[in-house]
């Protein structure tokens, strides 16, 4: 199975917990949930950020998706809390 280069971006308190806004990782994940499992292994700050999936939202290539969405060909995956615009 080949690995894929993906840009991961974080916003709001997810960014604060991870400690940086953006990084490029090498991933074998086919779904968002698998990607999260990989990220959780990267350290306690990631475990803290991804502790409660229900409190997170995810966008794959700038489109809101659910956690079972495919990330196979994605170039950017973003994690953030529920939006609070307006």
């Amino acid at each position: 199975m080949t690995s894929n280069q993906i840009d991961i971006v974080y916003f709001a308190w997810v960014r604060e917990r991870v400690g940086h806004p953006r990084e490029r990782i090498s991933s074998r994940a086919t779904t968002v949930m698998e990607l999260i499992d990989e990220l959780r292994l990267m350290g306690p700050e990631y475990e803290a950020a991804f502790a409660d999936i229900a409190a997170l939202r995810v966008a794959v290539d700038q489109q809101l998706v659910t956690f079972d969405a495919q990330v196979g060909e994605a170039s950017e995956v973003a994690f953030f809390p529920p939006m609070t615009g307006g």
Partner: protein
Amino acid sequence: MTVRIQSEPFDAGQELSRFTTQTGNVGAVVTFTGIVRSDGDNPVTKLMIEHYPAMTERAVALMVDAARERWSVTDCLVIHRFGELHIGEEIMMVAVSSAHRADSFEAAQFLMDYLKSRAPFWKKEFRTGTAAWVDGKLEDENALRQWDSEL
């Protein structure tokens, strides 16, 4: 249709005048303006708004498209600020024009409900000695569900 995501302050009144002049032959214009408000015992002193630049404009444009499909709308304007905002400053505004009032009112409410919970903005409230990200509100999710749409 205009979508502007900006850090600079704007004046909702000036925007309304310009929008009405440019929009041509309409019977109704509805605007919503969101303003930084101080509330409670330890009131908000400033707001920081973070957004997701690569996603924001397209996400808002999709909402505007959805509103135009659903209502007979002549023109739409959405302005949303990011960065540091102070009490009394305008955070964002929506303006909608149409031949008849019901279309403008409903499209403006629909846009607001989507912007609140589906546009990639996050607010952090600063109070004396503390700062906290604003939680998404259940009532905002419910407001969205009432439109019963698949956006």
